[in-house]
């Protein structure tokens, strides 16, 4: 399996995506913003399709549109809360715009499939370079804002009273979510970003880990899903994104089962 360069590249790309998706996803689930990753991937799809039509790499179109939209969501956070219909319409419009762009592409079918369901085996070594830069930047950004972000996520009223700028954190964090979504979409595709970003983080939180250990566990589980998906894809010749989605569900179901058993037997799930 590792004799082929495309497989080695795929494993490295999966590592980088998991490295970002674990910690970013942990905060995303903690803050109850899981849907944001799904929404940003939809908007990113339109950006990626537009970039392809323009003759630019889909990844840059995806990343740019997702980051701008994420930061926009942060700025307008007060105004979009509870507006499900408006959000749904914006997402539908984004998908529709993406479909229109793909319609004008001569290679639309292959491009659409790659965007929607990922094409991890098609990642080039040069893309790996960009993924690496983004992964390091993203995790460093999260490391810098981690403490106030945690405070603001858990107790926004007190954090604001203590001088934390909630709006700034929201904008910066959702910008990072945009980058993470773009990276994740390279592996799982637009429609399955949720599996790598949210499932490992939700499992980690369900198991009751604290912030630092929780982010590390989320990274480990995301890596397990991504590498496991690649291996199973190699063995079965089925799409990696399918296996990643399946493993994501299995990971969360297992974590939930463990947590329920602990609750049933009164075993404390947390060691401060």
């Amino acid at each position: 399996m590792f004799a082929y360069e495309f497989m080695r590249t795929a494993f490295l790309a999966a590592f980088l995506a998991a490295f970002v998706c674990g910690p970013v996803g942990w905060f995303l689930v903690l803050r109850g913003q899981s849907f944001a990753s799904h929404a940003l991937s939809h908007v990113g799809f339109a950006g990626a399709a537009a970039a392809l039509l323009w003759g630019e790499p889909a990844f840059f179109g995806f990343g740019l549109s997702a980051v701008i939209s994420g930061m926009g969501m942060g700025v307008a956070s007060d105004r979009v809360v509870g507006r499900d219909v408006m959000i749904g319409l914006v997402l539908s419009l984004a998908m529709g715009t993406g479909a229109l762009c793909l319609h004008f592409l001569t290679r639309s079918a292959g491009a659409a499939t790659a965007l929607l369901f990922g094409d991890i085996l098609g990642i080039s070594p040069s893309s790996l370079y960009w993924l690496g830069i983004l992964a390091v930047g993203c995790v460093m950004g999260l490391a810098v804002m981690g403490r106030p972000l945690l405070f603001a996520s858990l107790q926004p009223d007190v954090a604001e009273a203590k001088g934390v700028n909630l709006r700034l954190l929201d904008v910066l964090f959702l910008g990072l979510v945009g980058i993470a979504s773009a990276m994740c979409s390279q592996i799982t595709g637009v429609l399955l970003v949720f599996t790598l970003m949210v499932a490992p983080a939700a499992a980690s939180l369900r198991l009751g880990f604290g912030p630092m250990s929780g982010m590390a566990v989320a990274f480990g589980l995301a890596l397990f899903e991504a590498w496991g998906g690649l291996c199973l894809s190699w063995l079965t010749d089925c799409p990696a994104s399918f296996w990643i989605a399946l493993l994501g569900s299995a990971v969360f179901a297992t974590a939930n089962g463990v947590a329920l058993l602990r609750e049933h037997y009164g075993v404390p799930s947390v060691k401060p």
Partner: protein
Amino acid sequence: MTTPAIEAGQLSVSYGGQRVLDQVSFAIPPGSFVAVLGGNGAGKTSLFRAILGLATPEQGYVRVEGRHFGRGRMPVGYMPQMRRMAGGQLSGWHMVAAALRGRSWGLPWCSAHARAEVDAALDAVDARALAKRPVMSLSGGERQRLLLAQALLDHPRILLLDEPLASLDPARMRETTRRIYDLARQRGLTVLFSTHDINPLMGFMDHVLYLAHGKALLGSVDEVMTTPALSALYGAPVEVVRADGRLFVVADGGADTLHCCDCAEHTR
């Protein structure tokens, strides 16, 4: 003359386009235990937000220990009204620890010293054991204790407690009030304690800050909870009735009970 712990002068604050505090002035002596009383929308939370620097006064000023502190720099511990808490899967310990130096940039990492500080705050409210449990498994009263522990971090000299008795049963209300009172006396804290129900505070508070119709009245229970004083504050006739050891504040004609106070227990 002693500098007031909190002083407001001609303070006006609006919320949602409506003026909730209108040229309010008062001075709270340091070390006092003050019940902030008033109905829904009377401006209790707006007053706290103004003190914390979260609401900009349209007019007047509010000073803490005679100074204008920058937001987040004042020696004030704040316990907000309890709402749905995010991160319910995390332990109570982590919930409290997140507030310790939470405005500093960096990883949410706790040093041994920071862990000891969190443990000490939890010990102060007797919440060390329950802090091991996930927040979502805790009752309302237990969560209130965690929020109180969080307010005690960083050694504040003033505590602003916004409806700390909400969702507690009467027995828990008295217990919580006594706990806060004992802490305040041990540490020499000034406490502003907002509540709809004054009953559990009887015998503990030094002063009442009564808010109504944008105005405020500060004084002892006997000074504030009188028919003339509250009629003047409401700008309409109200009657303060004492019956069977209980204190009722009744609107003109007796149709609406504005407040009731159980006066049976005046001793600590």
